């Protein structure tokens, strides 16, 4: 029974490999799960407007946001900082890295530079803003029967002529982060909402 005698010899290392792999996987899970959970909870906890407002530089922006129609409207929709300012969470990779990059950058600037120019920051935010950010929610933009002008303007953005690509924020600026004297409720808006028209860059500014 030579064959029978040799067989367990060959099996033994195979079983050992399997056990080894299982042990390694378990160790992997034991290491990775807490890491994953930590980063997940870190992401969740650092994604709230309250967290953003924990930096004094950002407080005015969060205050203005809280008073804006992106928070106060009859349908109860609240649009958080992350919804506009970071790639959608389903773009996991972009979201994760963009958020980490901005976090590190903001902290570094806070300690190394110190000065925070809100107008300058606003400008760079406008420059970085992608139409996709707005269009995550605002998708039905072409049929607005009671505002033909908006229909016309939106067509020139969504089907832009070459060389005339525009950003939503080129016209819809100061929508959220303008300083208001009172809380703005969308349903109590007395004046009809209008985009402000193309932002004018005054000479020298």
């Amino acid at each position, binding site marked *: 029974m030579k064959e029978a005698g040799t067989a367990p010899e060959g099996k033994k290392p195979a079983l050992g490999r399997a056990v080894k792999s299982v042990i390694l996987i378990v160790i992997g899970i034991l290491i990775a799960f807490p890491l994953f959970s930590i980063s997940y909870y870190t992401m969740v906890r650092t994604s709230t407007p309250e967290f953003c407002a924990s930096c004094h530089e950002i407080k005015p922006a969060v205050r203005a946001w809280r008073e804006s129609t992106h928070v106060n409207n009859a349908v109860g929709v609240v649009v958080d900082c992350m919804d506009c300012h970071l790639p959608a969470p389903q773009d996991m990779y972009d979201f994760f890295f963009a958020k980490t990059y901005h976090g590190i950058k903001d902290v570094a600037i806070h300690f190394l530079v110190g000065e925070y120019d809100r107008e300058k920051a606003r400008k760079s935010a406008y420059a970085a803003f992608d139409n996709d950010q707005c269009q995550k929610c605002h998708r039905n933009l072409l049929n607005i029967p009671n505002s033909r002008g908006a229909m016309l303007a939106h067509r020139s953005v969504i089907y832009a002529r070459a060389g005339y690509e525009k950003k939503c924020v080129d016209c819809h600026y100061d929508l959220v982060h303008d300083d208001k004297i009172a809380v703005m409720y969308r349903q109590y808006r007395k004046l009809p909402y209008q985009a402000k*028209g193309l932002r*004018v860059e005054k000479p020298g500014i």
Partner: protein
Amino acid sequence: MRKMPLIRIIEVLVILSLVCALPLLTAAQQTNFPKVKQYRIERSIPPEGVACIECHRAATPGLFADWAKSRHANANISCLDCHLVQPGDTDIAKGHEQYYSRSDLPYGQEKYKVPIASIVTPKDCSRCHPDEVTQYSRSKHANTIEIMWKLDPWLNKGMNSDNERKTGCFNCHGTVIKIDEKGDIDPATWPNAGVGRINADGSMGSCTSCHTRHRFSVAEARMPEACDQCHLGPDHPQIEIYEESKHGTMYHAYKDEYNFNAAGGTWTAGVDYRAPTCAACHISGSGKVLTSHDVTERLSWETQAPLTVRPQDFKPFPAKSDWQTERNKMKAVCQQCHGNSWIDDFYDGFDKAIMEYNDVYFKPVKAKLDELYSKGLLDKTTFFDEHLELQFYELWHHEGRRARMGVMMMAPDYAWWHGFYEVKARFNEFNEEADHVLKTGEKAYVYPNYPNATGNTKRPVEVFPE
């Protein structure tokens, strides 16, 4: 007291009753009075907007009727869509707010009160027409105040009065709108529909220069009559040149057949119009060339500049385009009706005329003027107060432009009799006088007490920030 006879009493009563009945009689006779433009509010307009319409159809019926005939009215774009501003804006017409507390007006109620601006700017228009405004903002039209202040001796040397400027220069070029603390517009800056007006919201220009209030018609801007308000006269008679050209004569003969109301992007040479208007070549789309509200596009020479240069070399406001590309665009426009040899041969003559103007006439005269300045025979502190300065100015600014533009737009009379013929005469007169001064070494005569040279020489900070 004597008793009044009965007949007398009857007479008085009859006259009185006639006088009382007179208004009724006249009303009954006026069955054929002109009908007021109707406007039934059937589509969604906020109550504040209804108030605008109802009040203004009574207060300013002409303005209302004009709007009611417009494409805007057609698309339910009403007063508020353009005139509404946000609370706190600098250009709110505060004087207008009094009407919301007038109990004698049916809509004179607080609940209809909205902040509005009198002046509607390209920025306001950009809410719906962003591409048109973007194109326009790049043009020499929108930036004309900057160009004017970088070049013009009348302004920089203060050689005319502020009111001469308001009623003359700025009427076409535009004013810098100023609004005081009460919200009233400074009358020195308003009314104005100049192409380069600087508005309170920082935007440049005025769409209503060509698409006039409150019709805002594309058809109007396609007609040469939209341009001739400014582009005429001794210094740039584009409209007279056009009238003389074959294009202009054909336009006048056939304009009744022109379809000025064609939809944007569809206005077609040879179909909707027989010969081009100003807009057809300079603004409207044609063939594969797309419409642009930047009038500098399609130009290959700056024929209004003292020394003719390419648009990208025009120092006060260099175009971001390349002249060769732009010339090809214009050639493509010409090709809608003309063959290649026609177009190339035309440009050959145009380029030669530019070279002759630059090299034969302008440069030698400019060199001599500079020599006179450097030798101290002419005084450089002010301009226009010595005859040679006026001669030099008119050589490029008047007949020099007429010659170049006359050649460009194919008007032989302006190219020659009003143009190069006069350039030649001016050249000789200038040289005769300059040579005399150089020969004798006697300083040129300076006009004493130059009249009304009182204008402000400070550049507007809105255009030239300090």
